[in-house]
């Protein structure tokens, strides 16, 4: 099968890879580029554990063809911490134990960051609706929602 050569930007770094035309971006992230922070839960866009942003917009990487991302900008969970410094959401999730098994956590963090960039002062209802596409099989939603709300409050007072 003829491989496609794709040039893109991932977490600010110019990146090139080869892919099959039908390969998903999630597959390339995990299996070609070694970026295994994005998880495959369902592979059909239902669970949100593979969430990335594509040109700043939250999406499921399992529903994006790798061939599509040429010339676009991707961020993944690996780009969330700055060196050793965790993003405030990551720090708060640790402090408040807003995770159990951790499989959904990278996707939840990506989605929550995307929410706070758009809406720095979300209500609990807004958080719950925004994160409705991130399924947690441990059903730990309550701590996740509280951690997002608390992070939002801290980020506002720090701003």
């Amino acid at each position, binding site marked *: 099968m003829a491989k496609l050569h794709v040039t893109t930007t991932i977490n600010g770094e110019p990146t090139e890879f080869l892919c099959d035309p*039908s390969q998903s971006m999630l597959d390339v992230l995990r299996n070609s580029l070694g970026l295994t922070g994005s998880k495959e839960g369902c592979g059909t*866009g239902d669970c949100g554990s593979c969430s990335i942003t594509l040109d700043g917009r939250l999406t*499921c990487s399992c*529903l994006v*063809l790798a061939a599509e991302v040429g010339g676009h900008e991707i961020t993944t969970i690996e780009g969330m911490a700055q060196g050793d410094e965790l993003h405030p959401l990551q720090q708060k999730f640790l402090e408040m134990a807003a995770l159990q098994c951790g499989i959904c956590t990278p996707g939840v963090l990506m989605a929550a960051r995307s929410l706070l960039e758009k809406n720095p002062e979300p209500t609990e209802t807004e958080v719950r*609706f925004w994160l409705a596409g991130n399924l947690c099989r441990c059903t730990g939603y309550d701590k996740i929602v509280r951690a997002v709300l608390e992070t939002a409050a801290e980020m506002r007072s720090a701003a």
Partner: protein
Amino acid sequence: MTDIRYLAPPTLDEAVRAFAAAQGAARILAGGTDLLVQMRNGMVHPGTIIDIKKIPEMTSITEAADGSFWVGAAVSGAVLAEHPRFGKVWPGVLEAINLIGSTQVQGRASAGGNLCHGSPAADSVPAMVAAGAVLTIAGPNGRRTMPVEAFPVGPGRTSLAAGEILVGFTLPARPAGSGDAYLRMIPRTEMDIAVVGVGVSLTMAGGVVTAARVGLGAAAPTVLLVADAAKVLVGSKLDDAALNAAAAACSAACKPIDDKRGTIVYRTKVAAVLLKRAAAIAADRAQGRA
């Protein structure tokens, strides 16, 4: 696996030529929220994937001088929601499109894809039918237009001819005193497929309905335009008699199936309830009360 080709043509003409040349073995890719799932499940095996997102006409939203809107077939729900004007003029169409899937899905999924997928339960379609949207379709024999309600012909089947591509939607200019709304019944609060969906668009003057359209989803093999329901609303002040008659017309139009989401009896009853509730919201919007 056979060789799959990925093409992202920059113009509609090139897309039409590539689609025709593939002789039915190609699939159009907009947001991919249906196509990639179908490919993964082995339901489709496209020889060529034609990504239409590099075609400006198919990814743009334009408000014309006369007040009509063009919405390209590949415009995502999230992009449409961020348009400064669209949701003010067509709140019902926008809320219907924004009900499709999660935040992640909204970042990719389009009204064009929702329509072309051909589901009788597609949320955006009853609202588009109520809005009187007109489709532009391009194919090897040029362009043609069609009212949106003529597009679906059965579950998963559309009236696109071989080699034709849906280019986008034209929503007509909106007279003063107009409002629309879409409501669906789901047993959850979010992320589900409509058991029944109803879109209503009204134009009112002095409390009297001067124009109405009603779209009904998930209650027949295709989304339906319910002209009988609209007819009894026109000329009324949305009094109980008119609403009851329109609700009855909505139920009468139902030809649903029994399935895990709902029974025939339930869907037929809920169609009437949603008609009344959606009409009330559309009326409030038409009269500037919401």
